[in-house]
């Protein structure tokens, strides 16, 4: 049992903190907000040079073999700067799906390109009717003489517009009479039959909705050997939630720091806001919830490779708890900044919106408390 950072982890944290604080200034964020890409390709290249894109990829495929804890260290720093580069989509989710599901040939072809920064990925899984149930997919994939034909709709595809390949989940009827299994397909950008509606994403970056009408893909577009991909999707999204939890901790800590500073400077009735007990107690609650979020993000990361039920309960527990804490800290940060907190003139609103997006992504607190209960064998409302 040791929860202290190793020397390597400490150095990673230092370099990430330094890079983010030097690069992600308020000016930079404003500039990026108006960029059609939603992030900076130059910075992505620097991520590659720093080894961050290779971090969780296996050494056999040109990676550094890091784990969820190392990813969490990076993500927390990204949260502090509201980094909008598609790290989650390409590295945390994309590279993991390929590593856990892909054939050897696919891993050899794709993983080194992720590590060197030349391949951007997105994951198109969520559908409107599914809400947050990962098993509910209506998009279908049918065999054709040349490969596959995909039809369906996907929502909230993070970083889809910038991705050179989109990993799409679809139901495959293999003619066995058993329920259709879930498979993953690699769909290059610009494929015929794919309509992509790109939009700026709440809290920074971009996302899109997809309409697939008779999308034709070659036979080798299937990721892996055609086995049901749901267990891999569950594992990878659990890992993504742990990573997002760490990012949320960075965001929350920044909001707490800024709010603390502000309440010391802002004077009303002849004294600083922070002289009032009601304000002090609110700040104490914010600090407590930041600390609780930190514990849960770390716990989810440390359990990312545990057996599936323990892993998923840790991930859902973390997502639910951090989501609840995040909403509290974000709302109180705005509240304690008074009217200024509701304007675009301060950074507070940007951090607030990113936390709101965090709470929504992959399901909010209520969804994950239910998943946690169901995985623990307890009854839950359908």
């Amino acid at each position, binding site marked *: *049992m*040791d*929860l*202290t*950072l*190793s020397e390597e*982890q400490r150095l990673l944290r230092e370099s990430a903190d330094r890079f983010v604080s030097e690069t992600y200034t308020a000016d930079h964020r404003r500039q990026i907000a108006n960029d059609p890409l939603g992030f900076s390709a130059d910075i992505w290249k620097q991520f590659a040079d720093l080894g961050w894109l290779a971090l969780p990829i296996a050494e056999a495929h040109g990676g550094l073999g890091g784990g969820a*804890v190392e990813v969490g260290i990076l993500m927390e720093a990204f949260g502090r700067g509201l980094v909008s580069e598609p790290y989650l989509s390409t590295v945390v989710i994309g590279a993991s799906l390929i590593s856990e599901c892909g054939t050897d040939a696919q891993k050899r072809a794709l993983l080194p390109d992720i590590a060197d920064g030349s391949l951007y990925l997105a994951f198109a899984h969520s559908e409107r009717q599914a809400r947050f149930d990962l098993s509910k997919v209506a998009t279908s994939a049918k065999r054709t003489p040349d490969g596959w034909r995909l039809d369906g709709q996907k929502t909230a595809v993070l970083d889809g517009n910038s991705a050179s390949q989109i990993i799409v989940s679809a139901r495959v009827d293999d003619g066995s009479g058993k329920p259709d299994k879930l498979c993953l397909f690699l769909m290059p950008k610009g494929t015929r039959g794919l309509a992509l509606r790109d939009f700026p994403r709440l809290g920074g970056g971009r996302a899109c909705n997809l309409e697939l009408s008779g999308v034709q893909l070659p036979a080798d577009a299937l990721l892996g050997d055609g086995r049901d991909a749901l267990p891999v999707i569950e594992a990878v999204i659990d890992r993504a939630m742990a990573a997002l939890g760490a990012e949320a901790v960075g965001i929350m800590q920044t909001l707490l720091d800024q709010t*603390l500073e502000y309440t*010391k400077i802002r004077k009303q009735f002849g004294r600083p806001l*922070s002289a009032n*007990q009601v304000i*002090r*107690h609110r*700040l*104490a*609650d914010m*600090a*407590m919830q930041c*600390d*609780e979020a930190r*514990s*849960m993000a*770390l*716990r989810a990361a*440390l*359990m990312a490779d545990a057996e599936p039920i323990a892993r998923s309960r*840790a991930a859902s*527990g973390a997502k*639910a*708890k951090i989501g609840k804490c995040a909403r509290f800290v974000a709302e109180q940060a705005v509240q304690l900044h008074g009217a200024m907190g509701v304007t675009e003139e301060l950074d507070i609103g940007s951090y607030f919106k990113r936390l709101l997006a965090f709470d929504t992504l992959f399901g909010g607190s*209520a969804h994950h*408390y*239910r998943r*946690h*209960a169901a995985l*623990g064998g*307890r*009854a*839950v*409302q359908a």
Partner: protein
Amino acid sequence: MDLAFNAEERAFEKEVREFIAANLTPEMKRATALTPSVFSDPDIGMAWQRALHRKGWGAPGWPVEHGGPDWTPAQRWIFETECARAGAPNVNVMGVKMVGPVIIGFGSPEQKNFYLPRILSGEDYWCQGYSEPGSGSDLSSLKTRAVRDGDDYIINGTKIWTTHAHHANRMFALVRTNETERQQDGISFILIDMKSPGITTRPILTIGGDHEVNQVFFDDVRVPVANRVGEEGKGWTYGKYLLEFERGSGIASAKLRDALKTVSSLAASDLTGRAIDDPDIAMRMSEIEVDIDTLEMTELRVLSALQTGQNPGAVSSLLKLRVSEIRQAVTRLGVDVIGNDGLYVEPVRPLYRLNEAPGIPEEMLPVVPEYLNGRAYTIFGGSSEIQRDIVAKMVLGL
């Protein structure tokens, strides 16, 4: 980073489990489960203390020269966790975890030689004389006076909320030895023999129906000056040192998990019409379980810092806040789980010595009293409001 314990620690865990299996009797377990107050009755708690002492485990946090087992923080964690899991009684916290560390830290050699072995063996049973009717959260305003008369102090005044004063043969108390400008400066830390002439004890019943706390009156009580710990006027410093121990000895998640397990098995039982099938109950149970996971992780972070010699700092206030709130959430859920059976009142104490079969299943008896008595968790040892003041000051630098 690694959540798992190493081979040595696992071996120790096995040793603790074997010790518990051999020494924790069914009577002790049953009595503990049926104790709805904060502390176990002395006949139960001290029987366990004696068993621990025989093994050399009587005072887990003490240094080895005073009879401590010289455990690492991880070993303490394992020990506390296994005891909670097994449903072991609370030992005399006021002795082992409160006054013991103060005597070790600030007492004279004579005091150490006399008192510490008697705490370890269970020969002495301690109570804590801190709060007064006029001094609750504002503890340093306390008025019980100790006036020097030759080699004695003469003590007059009253202490209140004194847990187990009716069982204790000794009290450690904060008393005013001087009127000073800063009220903290006139306080001394003193050890009192409860059999001294002039001491009377009045029971106070709590809303759960338990006699756990008392008011203690001092009427010209003579206490030798040799019973003062450390310097005159420094009692506040020693008292605060002790409160750190009282607030966050750092390992509460295992106890909370055990309490939730009790509620959870009631909820899954036909006795409650399977309350667990109510999605609201199932959901709240998950919320509490996640809160306990969170607390456990924070405790492990503190433990890990201690293992590497770092100071975890003011985190004891954060822990105290969460522990007390989660405990109350567990007891609240318990009341909701047992439904109509919560209306049954059993006035006889202790619950584990009822002469007749109660009107509801035995395991439900402590549920409502635990909830009612448990309102005190966010009040004693510095109320939640005081803890938030401390967090604001110590953690946030306000």
